[in-house]
């Protein structure tokens, strides 16, 4: 009877727990013993926490349950893939000389990757491979920064961690070329992916990491990704995340960055498509004189729902942080921004700035913005600003008075609005690509 069926229908949590217990010790075992211990801890925490409910303040504007309830398959064992180099080619950045690492359905694919030559001691490889070949490095950092104790998504990812990407730059080493991690989804069924990323830049090291995600097939996917990044003393780490997996992909990305003194970390998040995209980005400058820069650009259209939650947790004095997130929201799309700046007690002489600007381009677009300041030290300069509105009529009029058509004037202003974020992209070929994309989207022909 249908009623009984409804009653025995399992929750998403139960499905994961069942899958874990079935696969534990076999496919989820692996050779790394620390990973094995963490997995057990994490699944227990996940069971206790459960996915955030609609009433949870942090998920107030994002109904993540809606996409979680789909019956995704969990590919716990690697599968043969038909993805070829030709499939990957369009996803590469033109003119970009990079160490390219390809993930197919969250798994490192060595044949498709072209990592090339690396400086002495540097490592760019799949996460599973790193756990096997460099257990000391993985053990020292894995699970140290992302909080699997209190975050259900991180706990779940930790429990199911199998593969992903691993980048290690040893002391006083500079990676001249960026690392480009291309994630490709190719599936016949609705698929759940849980890739794990670990990026380590030791003292005085420098690295640039670009992550792009694209789907080749047209199934629903849910990607629950976790990125842990570590910047040693005086290290420089630039991170670019370009989310464009298509309208059927749901993404929950948790990024936790740890910074030692004098380190400089820049993160850039670009979201161009997705059914529901939720990014939790947390930076922890834990030593004096750190710099943290957070940039984000969301181009919303269709039914997209993009939710960026950022936290800059100033645990040490004399640091600087700046944040700029911009939204261009069209059609039925929704953009959510929650930026939190926390200055802990005795973290004196902090300068923290945050700005969130949104343009609503249609009747049905929605914006929810919540910039937060939480300050427990007095010798600080912290500020945030948030604006929401539509294009300035006077600016359009001015441009029209100079001979531009309405469409041209509008396009010029929209592209200029987005360029404020693009200007912070330090990798030229990438900036050019993104600029082309934005111009094509909003330019006069669009």
């Amino acid at each position, binding site marked *: 009877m249908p009623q009984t069926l409804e009653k025995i229908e399992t929750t998403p949590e139960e499905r994961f727990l069942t899958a874990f217990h079935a696969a534990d010790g076999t496919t989820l075992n692996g050779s790394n013993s620390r990973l094995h211990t963490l997995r057990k801890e994490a699944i227990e925490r996940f069971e206790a926490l459960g996915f955030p409910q609609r009433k949870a303040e942090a998920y107030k504007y994002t109904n993540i349950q809606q996409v979680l309830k789909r019956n995704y398959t969990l590919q716990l064992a690697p599968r043969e893939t038909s993805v070829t180099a030709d499939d990957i080619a369009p996803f590469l950045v033109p003119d970009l000389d990079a160490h390219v690492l390809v993930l197919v359905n969250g798994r490192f694919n060595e044949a498709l990757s072209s990592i090339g030559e690396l400086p002495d001691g540097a490592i760019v490889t799949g996460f599973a491979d790193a756990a096997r070949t460099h257990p000391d490095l993985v053990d020292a950092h894995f699970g140290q920064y992302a909080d699997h104790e209190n975050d259900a998504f991180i706990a779940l990812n930790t429990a199911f961690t199998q593969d992903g990407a691993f980048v290690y730059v040893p002391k006083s080493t500079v990676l001249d070329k960026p690392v480009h991690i291309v994630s490709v989804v190719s599936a016949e069924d609705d698929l759940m992916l849980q890739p794990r990323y670990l990026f380590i830049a030791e003292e005085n090291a420098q690295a640039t990491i670009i992550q792009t995600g694209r789907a080749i097939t047209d199934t629903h996917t849910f990607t629950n990704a976790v990125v842990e990044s570590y910047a040693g003393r005086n290290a420089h780490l630039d991170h670019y995340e370009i989310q464009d997996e298509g309208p059927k992909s749901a993404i929950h990305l948790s990024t936790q960055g740890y910074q030692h003194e004098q380190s400089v970390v820049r993160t850039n998040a670009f979201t161009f498509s997705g059914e529901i995209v939720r990014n939790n980005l947390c930076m922890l400058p834990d030593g004096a004189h750190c710099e943290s820069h957070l940039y984000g650009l969301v181009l919303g259209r269709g039914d997209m729902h993009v939710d960026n939650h950022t936290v800059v947790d100033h645990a040490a004095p004399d640091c600087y942080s700046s944040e700029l997130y911009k939204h261009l929201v069209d059609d039925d799309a929704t953009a959510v921004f929650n930026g939190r700046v926390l200055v802990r*007690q005795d973290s004196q002489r902090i300068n923290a700035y945050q700005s969130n600007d*949104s343009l609503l381009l249609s*009747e049905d677009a929605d914006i929810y913005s*919540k910039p937060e300041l939480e*300050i427990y030290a*007095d010798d600080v300069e912290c*500020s*945030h600003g948030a604006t929401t509105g539509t294009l300035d009529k006077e600016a359009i009029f001015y441009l029209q008075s100079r001979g531009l058509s309405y469409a041209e004037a509008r396009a010029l202003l929209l592209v200029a609005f987005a360029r404020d974020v693009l200007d912070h992209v330090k990798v030229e070929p990438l900036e050019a690509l993104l600029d082309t994309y934005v111009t094509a989207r909003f330019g006069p022909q669009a």
Partner: protein
Amino acid sequence: MSTTQTEYLQDVADADYEHGWTTDIEADTADPGLTEDTVRMISAKKEEPEWLLEWRLKAFRYFKKIMEDSSQYPEWAHLKYVQPNLQEISYYSAPKRKARYDSLDEVDDELLETFERLGIPLQEQKQLAGVAVDAVMDSVSVATTFKEELKEAGVIFCSISEAARDYPELVRKYMGSVIPYTDNYFASLNSCVFSDGSFVYVPKGVRCPMELSTYFRINEQNTGQFERTLIIAEDDAYVSYLEGCTAPQRDESQLHAAVVELVAHDNAEIKYSTIQNWYPGSKEGEGGIYNFVTKRGLCKGDDSKISWTQLETGSSITWKYPSVILKGDRSVGEFYSVAFTKGHQQADTGTKMTHIGDDTKSTIISKGISGGRSNNSYRGLVRVNKNAKNARNFSQCDSMLLGDRCGAHTFPYIEIDNPTAQVEHEATTSKVGDDQLFYCHQRGLNEEEAIKMIVNGFCKEILAKLPMEFAVEARELLAIELEGSVG
């Protein structure tokens, strides 16, 4: 930071409450506890009409459910305190000698002295043109002046229990229309046990001839005070209402859960100003008033305007969000606030602006100053509904920190569903600048004078919004608060 400044700010943070003493008046106090009988007793004591008792009971039946369900208690605010035990509170207290007074002469001398020590110009009011006072000592309205003059203008200004008897059709129509008894935990509680409060009705086209003012005092030990204020401005009417408070020193925490409802019809304007200086608790953070207030105004008619101005310096815990629902086209909502916390005080205060009508405007200016070990949070919501065309909002929240053990926080929520909205929010947090202090020193001002001047300048914008009499008092209050025991 120089030692002198540190010492000075320490003194400020340690300063004792100036208005801490109790008036010894016999009072008629109900046994602690909240049951249906309590609600019936309060209603009976107030000689309330049947419909009002029914209303209270309906609220009580609802509240009973949420009282027993701990998940209903509002825990989202950035506050740390022990939840008050509602069964330990006495819900009714009235001066015993007489339930009502016809003139000032009948009022207890001791009571009048209380007001004088607080600096309430009750007696002088008669000579001082422009201010009518409805003094509330605990729960019963003690004296009302200027009634005659207001009557001539057609303005009704009386206690809410009087209004329920004399103008039942008005009270029935508007009470709970802006804040229903299901609104939130404390509004529900208030709806069952509200003791007294003010009622103002300004008829069509009338500009209220004077500033209306009520001073609230919590006096009897262990009695929470649950006022309920209702202000209605008909078409083209104008009224300015002043509320000011001080309370004597107590060891036990006292719960205060008031409800204030404002209704502005077409082209009407209501200006509501508050100075709140209740007992903030001892130096160790013991005692003090829990101030959990629900205040909301409804701009019901087109071109209406509601303006909240507040100076919050007292209470150990403040949980207060005076809000405006901008329903009428071209309606305007304003919120100006200065919140000063020191010692172990905690404040979570702000506003909610809900834009519903077309071409609505709202302005939010909030200044928070925290010292000692206090925590001061701004929490505000600007919501533009789907059909609210051309809504405009400007919000500014500035925080000043006067020590390294206090906290200043900003939690603005911005929800925009209409593309024609133009919403701006900005917030800053900093301490008194060393360069500012240096400049003042250079001009011959000492630390204390300099800090007073800088803080005063920081708040000036808001204090200037208060009516004349209040502005002076407010500046004084802020100066006294800062002064502490500095010799």
